[in-house]
């Protein structure tokens, strides 16, 4: 992508517009699924119809005979490592002996038309010995079932033991919470175009992904190629939300391209996409909170069970996020936590926006409401009494060094005006049931609920997390190079804002996003503003220093007396020495910078250690209307105040906040992949319901700006917090409206009215 960006005013703090918005509104932006190559074949995947089965035989003869079929591949055709995976390499590229979840890839075909491929897949005969699937996570914990994978059924257990283990509070509340399996449901399904090098010595892959370099490493190993023979270019990404952190069709498309010596395009259908990526972990969480009678939280006990499905993906990291966040954004000295991430024959689960904290938050916020009730104080006051501050310790023993304006988030949210009450004039589309005309307005009940959360930013547990960027200035023009995946979040807007601000130059180009530079890490964990923003900022500052040095040298000045202000290089008295454009005329400056965040540590067996990097906070207040007789809900308004450190782009920020809230609303009242005995029952947009324009609430957002001393731009990541505590806030509001003790999401109509 090389897009001329806008004028001087598009510096940090302004609502600079997306450089890719113009081609996107015209339909000209090339998403991965839009790519095309001369002589291209289509690739397709045969998937397991069973949750657990032994493969007896695979017969591809009939598929080979179909006109237009160019290639049929099984596990025997994988030239390199037979497995892949983000943390543990435990997932077969193509199933060999066993299939461990419904939808696991078994055979690949390449053909001249998608319909040819479909017929070829139908012609392949796979004989299975169907086995009883392991679908109950508790059976993976108690080891009562033989391992379904050589790595065993327990992916990870982590306890947190801190403080007085026998402390009993004056007030004790407990609850069993459950979360269903949510799908990221990005709109642009998995897609890639693989272009083989002549002679099969390498491959170029255009792919929608969150992390080009991690993909490359896994692909090269499976293809048995050196990493420098596998070049990845970011194809246009139609949303991600965690689902593109694991690889899906990357190795498959390369295998088919290398075998046929022709370009191969793969694109999942929506149904296949539900089987082709990991989901949010379903979880069962028991919690018991101990507090003083005036509501001060003393001790949290919790047992967290996360169903990782058939393969590990990021389950171990998701578990750590869940168990280390069970206290929520509240002071708490004593903790007894036991967490498990387990393997089952359910669909594999991994990264989704919120990454384990969504699950913990639903439970801890339910507990705070129970505590408020038990102590006879309001949901707002219970949260204010316990609100965490900078300097407080987490139950892991880690001290919060970041800005932590929890109380301020709550107070500012509480100040946001309530929406008007429903009246007889309220449009039927705005009340529960909508155009279905189910509601009798006089029977609708309104409820209000609260949710507050803490979310770690970036990677944890000792991972050397870094991002790389190169800044080149030539003739007054900046070009930026990085491998940061743009998935819709807006780094392509932010990076030029940084460059303009640091360098005082208006024209900024973004070079192709590919593996032609060092890794940027994943576009996940709310980390790219901090990490890649830090890298771009660092590279631009190095270049700025070089430009100043050059000007100082030419003019015989001390470089320490010069700096860039606006578009000029100025001296100590603020007088312009020369414009940056003029200073760089006919010259070229280029620097690469690698930004690392502060090192983190491991957790010990008692769950103690400084395992996280930084934290952000947010408060949500939900107002809902409920039809108690039918159990139908309309979310009316979400008020929120978010701890963002510093607002870098108000328009982009609001987009993240509103979008995250819609996803949290989905989990609260409609989104769930329904799995029965390992079988997915609703892999389609007819039956997996996403919020529509008529389900979206009014969102009123405020930002709490306390610049973070550790953040390179003072700004915290803002992607995940919006979707975390909004879910418990909505459920609390439904409880408030109905009096029903709802402990499971998504809340189904029958949970309310039966």
């Amino acid at each position, binding site marked *: 992508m090389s897009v001329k960006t806008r004028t001087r005013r598009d510096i940090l703090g302004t609502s600079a517009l997306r450089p*890719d918005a113009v081609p*996107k509104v015209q339909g000209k932006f090339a998403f991965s699924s839009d790519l095309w190559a001369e002589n291209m074949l289509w690739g397709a995947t045969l998937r397991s119809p069973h949750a657990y089965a032994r493969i007896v035989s695979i017969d591809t003869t009939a598929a080979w005979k179909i006109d237009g079929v160019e290639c049929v591949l099984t596990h025997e055709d994988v030239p390199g490592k037979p497995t892949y995976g983000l943390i543990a390499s435990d997932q077969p590229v193509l199933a060999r002996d066993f299939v461990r979840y419904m939808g696991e890839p078994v055979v690949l075909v390449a053909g001249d038309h998608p319909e040819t491929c479909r017929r070829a897949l139908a012609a392949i005969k796979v004989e299975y010995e169907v086995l009883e699937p392991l679908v109950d996570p508790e059976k993976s914990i108690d080891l009562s079932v033989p391992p379904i994978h050589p790595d065993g059924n327990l992916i990870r257990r982590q306890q947190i033991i801190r403080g007085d283990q026998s402390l009993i509070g004056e007030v004790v509340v407990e609850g069993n919470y459950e979360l269903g399996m949510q799908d990221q449901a990005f709109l642009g399904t998995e897609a890639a175009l693989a272009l083989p090098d002549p002679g099969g010595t390498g491959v170029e892959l255009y792919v929608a992904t969150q992390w080009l370099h991690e993909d490359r490493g896994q692909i090269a190993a499976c293809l048995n190629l050196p990493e420098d023979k596998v070049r990845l270019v970011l194809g246009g990404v139609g949303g991600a939300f965690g689902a593109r952190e694991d690889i899906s069709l990357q190795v498959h498309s390369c295998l088919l391209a290398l075998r046929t010596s022709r370009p191969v395009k793969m694109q999942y259908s929506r149904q296949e996409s539900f089987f082709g990526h990991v989901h949010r972990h379903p979880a069962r969480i028991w919690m018991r909170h101990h507090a003083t009678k005036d509501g001060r939280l003393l001790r949290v006990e919790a047992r967290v069970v996360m169903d990782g499905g058939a393969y590990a993906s990021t389950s171990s990291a998701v578990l750590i996020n869940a168990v280390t966040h069970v206290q929520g954004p509240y002071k708490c000295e004593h903790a007894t936590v036991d967490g498990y991430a387990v393997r089952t024959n359910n669909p594999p689960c991994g990264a989704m926006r919120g990454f384990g904290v969504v699950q913990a938050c639903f439970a801890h916020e339910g507990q705070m409401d129970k505590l408020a009730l038990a102590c006879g104080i309001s949901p707002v006051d219970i949260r204010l009494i316990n609100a965490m501050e900078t300097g407080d310790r987490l139950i892991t023993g880690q001290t919060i060094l970041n800005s932590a304006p929890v109380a301020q988030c709550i107070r500012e949210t509480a100040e946001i005006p309530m929406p008007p009450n429903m009246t007889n004039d309220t449009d039927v589309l705005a009340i529960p049931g909508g155009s279905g005309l189910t509601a009798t307005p006089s029977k609708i009940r309104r409820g209000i609920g609260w949710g507050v959360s803490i979310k770690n930013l970036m990677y944890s547990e000792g991972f050397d997390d870094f991002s790389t960027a190169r800044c080149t200035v030539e003739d007054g023009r900046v070009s930026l190079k990085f491998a940061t995946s743009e998935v819709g979040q807006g780094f392509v807007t932010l990076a030029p804002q940084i460059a303009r601000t640091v360098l005082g130059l208006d024209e900024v180009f973004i070079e192709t996003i590919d593996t032609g530079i060092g890794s940027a890490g994943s576009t996940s964990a709310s980390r790219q503003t901090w990490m890649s923003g830090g890298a771009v900022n660092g590279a631009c500052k190095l270049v700025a220093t070089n430009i100043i040095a050059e000007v100082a040298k030419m003019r015989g000045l001390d470089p320490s007396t010069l700096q860039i202000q606006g578009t000029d290089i100025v001296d100590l008295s603020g007088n312009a020495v020369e414009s940056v454009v003029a200073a760089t005329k006919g010259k070229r400056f280029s620097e690469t910078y690698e930004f690392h965040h502060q090192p983190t540590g491991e957790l010990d067996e008692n769950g103690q250690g400084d395992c996280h990097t930084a934290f952000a906070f947010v408060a949500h207040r939900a107002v809902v209307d409920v039809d108690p007789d039918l159990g139908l809900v309309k979310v009316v308004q979400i008020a929120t105040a978010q701890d963002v450190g510093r607002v870098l782009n108000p328009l982009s920020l609001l987009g993240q906040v509103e979008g995250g*809230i819609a996803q949290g609303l989905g989990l609260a009242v409609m989104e769930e992949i329904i799995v029965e005995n390992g079988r997915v029952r609703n892999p389609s947009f007819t039956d997996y319901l996403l919020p529509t*324009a008529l389900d979206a609430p009014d969102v009123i957002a405020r930002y709490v700006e306390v610049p973070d001393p550790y953040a390179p731009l003072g700004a915290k990541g803002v992607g995940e917090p919006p979707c975390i505590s909004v879910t418990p806030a909505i459920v609390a509001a439904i409880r408030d409206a109905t009096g029903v003790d709802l402990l499971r999401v998504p809340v189904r109509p029958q949970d309310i009215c039966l």
Partner: protein
Amino acid sequence: MSLENQSYTLRVNNKSLDVQDAWIGESLLYVLRERLGMPGAKGACEQGECGSCTVLLDGEAVCSCLVLAAAATDADIRTVESIGDGQTLSDVQQAFVESGAVQCGFCTPGLIVAVENLLTHNPRPTEMQVKEALSGNICRCTGYGRIFDAVSVAVARRTGVSQ
């Protein structure tokens, strides 16, 4: 390829375009994208539940994934590529860009067609009419707020009324 094929002509964006030797089961979405070089309409659900593939068929917004291309030979088909003049943006497109209504952008072309269609039929829609008109276009990134804002901006500019 041994599929059941047929050749036919479609009228897209005021041009007659030949489709050669195409499998008769192909949707209009597939033919536009893979045979006619117009990838603006996007596919995301194959069953009319997302609106990403919205085009105008004889002046009505429909899901092109649910139109059998070979049976649409008598139809006037308009795609997102016909909106604006290819260089300058339409007022709706401009409003989407300025209002932050675009994030990943995958739903955007379908929304642009749906909004243009709405404003053609109803130049001054109420808030609820906008929401109902766009209720078949799923957006997973924005939560719709900036999209509603973009429609308000476009309506205000088109009607000369500030909202």
